[in-house]
Every structure is written in C-alpha cells, then in structure tokens.
C-alpha cells in the first residue's frame, strides 16, 4: 500500500507539470520542452534557498518567478525571433542546465534535516499521510487558481489564441505577448513541481529533470482521452482530469514496479505506456 500512497503523492507533486503542459500544448498549441530545465530550476532554487534558511513564502515566489522567466525566454525566442517552438525550448533547456549547476554549486544537495513545506503542518503522525493532506491543499489551491484564470476574460483570450490566432488578433489581442505570458505561466507551474518534489524527496539533483516532460505529456494525454471519451467541455472538469491524469500515470508506474518489472526498464515502460494511450483510441476507431 505504501508504494501506491507514495505514487499518489508523486502524482500530486507532478500536477504542476501536467497543468503546465496542458497550458502550453493544449491551450496554446505550442510544443514546449523547456520543461526539463524549468522543473530542475524549480528544484535547485528550492534546495539552495532552503539551505540558506529563507522563509517559505519567499522560496515559493522565487520558484514561480524563476520558472516564469525561463518560460518567457522560450516565448520571446519563439515569437520575436520566429524560431520553431521546439528548438526555442531546447535552447533554453540546454542553457538552463548550466544555470542550474551554477545555482546548486554541485550535482546533488541533500535537505534531509531542514524544515520544508511538509513540516509546516502536523495533523497526522504518519509522515506520508500528513504529506498527502498538505499536498492536497496545495494542489487544490493551484487548480482553483488556474481554473479561475481560464474563466476570466483574459483566460478566454488565452484559450482562443491556440484556436484561431487570426481571430484573436482581429479582436485586439497581441498574440505574441499572449504566448510569452502563456509559456511563462506553464513553466512557472512546472517549476512548482520541482519545488514540491525536491521537498518531498529531500534533495535537489541536477539530473532530476531528465525526461520529466514525458510525465506531463503522459498526464495530459490520459486526460485528453478521458475528456474526449466523456465529451467534456467544462474548463473545471478538464483541469480535474489533467490532475487525475498525473496521478493515474504515477499509479501505473507503481503498479509495474509492484509486479516485479526491473526498475532499469522503468523509462521504457513509461514510453510504452504513453504510446499505448495515444495509440489505442486510433486503433479502435479504425476498426469502427
């Protein structure tokens, strides 16, 4: 049971990445893979600030700010220099590796004895159950915030930008600016996942972000399959399903470990799992 509980906790930590990818990929229709870099950035900023005894709210703001700057850079490269979004993301992600290494000063920073977000509140004695409550509150607040944002007039303009750029410009929206803001929000959310995971696992690591974009993609694709299957149009339900996607993804990985698959093959299993979710609806619809 402990394995599945910690998978659930990890899933909640990854909600930020899932929301971030949902915003960049589904709402703006931009394939953004700054993710690997901005996730680690969130982690290393958290780690270094915790070891320097900075207050919690300040760390949170710094992580959001750092992620937003990384995303905005990708956005500026993509819109102002007209460079393909994938390439723009790769460039920023590559540069971020050096930035992260410089911030961290070494490749791994343990935080084991330091007070973290998970030691703020002590309602339950079992540390994992206690973490579950804190994480649930945090993620619920995050979901409400994004949901509200997407419902506002600004949010409608955001959602329309990925749909019909021509129309949105004709309605007085600077789409370049909108995309830069969108990527900033997406990567701020991704950095928040790095913030949570670092505190949850008790260390920041320079390679923690390698391949993490697949977690976001997988979660969003699971959500998308559910959204189209249940024919959901509500913004709130879409967000809840993206969150569910992040949790389901981790539970499936926990299940594969549980049935005794060699952990070395975990990334392979991850890739296969995403392939199956993407492929299945197409295979079944072809038969129909």
């Amino acid at each position: 049971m402990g394995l599945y509980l910690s998978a659930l906790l990890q899933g909640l930590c990854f909600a930020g990445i899932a929301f971030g990818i949902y915003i960049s990929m589904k709402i703006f229709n931009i394939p953004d893979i700054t993710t690997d870099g901005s996730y680690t950035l969130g982690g290393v900023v958290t780690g270094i600030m915790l070891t320097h005894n900075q207050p919690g709210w300040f760390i949170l703001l710094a992580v959001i700010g750092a992620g937003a700057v990384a995303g905005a850079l990708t956005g500026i490269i993509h819109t102002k220099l007209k460079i393909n979004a994938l390439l723009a993301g790769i460039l920023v992600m590559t540069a971020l590796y050096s930035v992260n290494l410089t911030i961290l000063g070494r490749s791994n920073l343990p935080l084991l004895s330091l007070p973290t977000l998970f030691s703020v509140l002590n309602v339950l004695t079992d540390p994992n159950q206690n973490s579950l409550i804190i994480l649930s509150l945090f993620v619920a607040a995050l979901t409400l915030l994004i949901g509200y944002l997407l419902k506002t007039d600004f949010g409608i303009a955001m959602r329309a930008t990925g749909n019909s750029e021509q129309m949105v410009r004709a309605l007085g929206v600077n789409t370049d600016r909108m995309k830069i803001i969108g990527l900033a929000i997406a990567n701020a959310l991704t950095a928040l996942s790095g913030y949570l995971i670092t505190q949850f696992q008790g260390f920041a690591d320079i390679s923690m972000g390698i391949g993490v974009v697949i977690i976001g993609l997988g979660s969003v694709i699971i959500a998308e399959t559910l959204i189209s299957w249940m024919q959901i149009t509500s913004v709130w339900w879409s967000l809840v399903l993206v969150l569910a996607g992040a949790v389901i993804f981790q539970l499936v990985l926990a299940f594969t470990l549980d049935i005794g698959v060699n952990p070395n093959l975990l990334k392979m299993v991850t890739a296969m799992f995403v392939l199956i979710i993407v492929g299945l609806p197409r295979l079944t619809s072809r038969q129909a």
Partner: protein
Amino acid sequence: MIALKNISKTFNAGKPNEVKALGKLSLEIHEGEFVVIVGSNGSGKTTLLNLVAGTILPDTGTISIAGNNATKLTDYQRSKWIARIFQNPLSGTAADLSILDNFRLAALRTKSKGLTIGKNENFKALVREKIAALGMGLEDKTEQPIGTLSGGQRQALTLLMSVMDECKILLLDEPTAALDPRSAENVICTADALIKQYSLTAILVTHNLKDAANYGTRIIQMGEGEILKDIAAKEKAKLKQAELFEWFG
C-alpha cells in the same frame, strides 16, 4: 473614415519571385459607405483589405483611419475601429470555445481583457437575445463549442460578434466563398442588415457579381494592383449585373 494615400506594396522585393501587389494606390472611403471590391485573382483586392486591416504594412504611403494616422499600427491595434469577417468560416471563431466565450471575447474587441469573470447572467441573456434575432435556433446552444456548428452558422455568428462591441468599420473578405448558396445568401443578407442598422462603413471583397450588383453603395474594380473603375452611389444603382460581367470579358 478610411484614407489611403500613395500606397504601394511589393512582396519578396528583390527576389526572383517578386510580386508587385499594389502600386501608388490612393483611395478615400467616407463614413457610412458600403464599398464592394471586385477583380480577378491577383488584382490586389485582398492585399488592399489586409492593408486596411493592418495584417500587412505598406512599403510607402500613409493610411489614416477615423482621423488617426494608422500607417504603422498592426492588426490588433486597429481592432478598436475595425471588425473583420474572414473567407474561411473557421478563422473568425475559436472552435473549441463555446459560443458564449466567443461572444465574450468579441464584446471586448476595443477593451482590455482583464482578470475578472465577465461572462455573467446579464451577458448570457444579452447573447441569447442577439442570437435569437438571427432566427437560426442557436440561442439554446450557447454553451456548445462553436466548432460543432456549420460554416454558414459560424459565419452568421461572426457577423453578429462584430457588432457586440463598438464598431466603425467592417471588413468582409469573401465571406461567402466557402458556403453553399443558401447559407451564402443568408450571410450576405445578415451583413447588409447589420451594416444598415449600425450605419457601418464597410468594405466587401467578393467574386460573386450578383452580390456586387445587389449590395453596397459604391463599387470598385481592381486589376494589376490599381483601381480600374470606381462607381459611386447613383451610378451604381443603375448598374446591371450583365454590365458587371462585361468588366471581366
């Protein structure tokens, strides 16, 4: 209302595929005029419309709109005066968004899109009432994604969306080209009614000579990036469709 002076526009200048789209064109359109522009493919009609809309900027010359120098303003900066209808019904609306969301955005064309929820009950009632006036039975479907509607329905709604906010100028770029004859008739009638009701200044680019003869207060024929014929109100009323066909003979 719209004044173009000595406008020229060349695409891919200096390259083998150089295209001189417009050369030293001047045109003045007065308030309340409904100008129909006809001309064969490549005559510069759409370039002219895009220059007014601001999606492309001129190489030389000046553009003034509603008394303001708009030469260097881009499309989203000119949206405070101009509403546009595109040839492709899919371009004028955001498919995944509900009809209501689309209308909400259109109602903010000249305003900033803030961090408040503006889609309240009053607004929903207003949209339902406006859509009901179209008589297409879409007023009960306002929560549906607009992408589930047909091209004709979407084009009619786009027209309605253009007058959700203060609108001075309406640009229509072959709005009926992608529609079946009945939807096309419906869309052009709706457009004409709205232009009259709101006293809009309008420019319609079309290949449909029947529409060109029946609608508008002024007709312009373009060719090779220049204005070939410019016929104003009184003369236009006398103009027969058959004569229009001869222009292209």
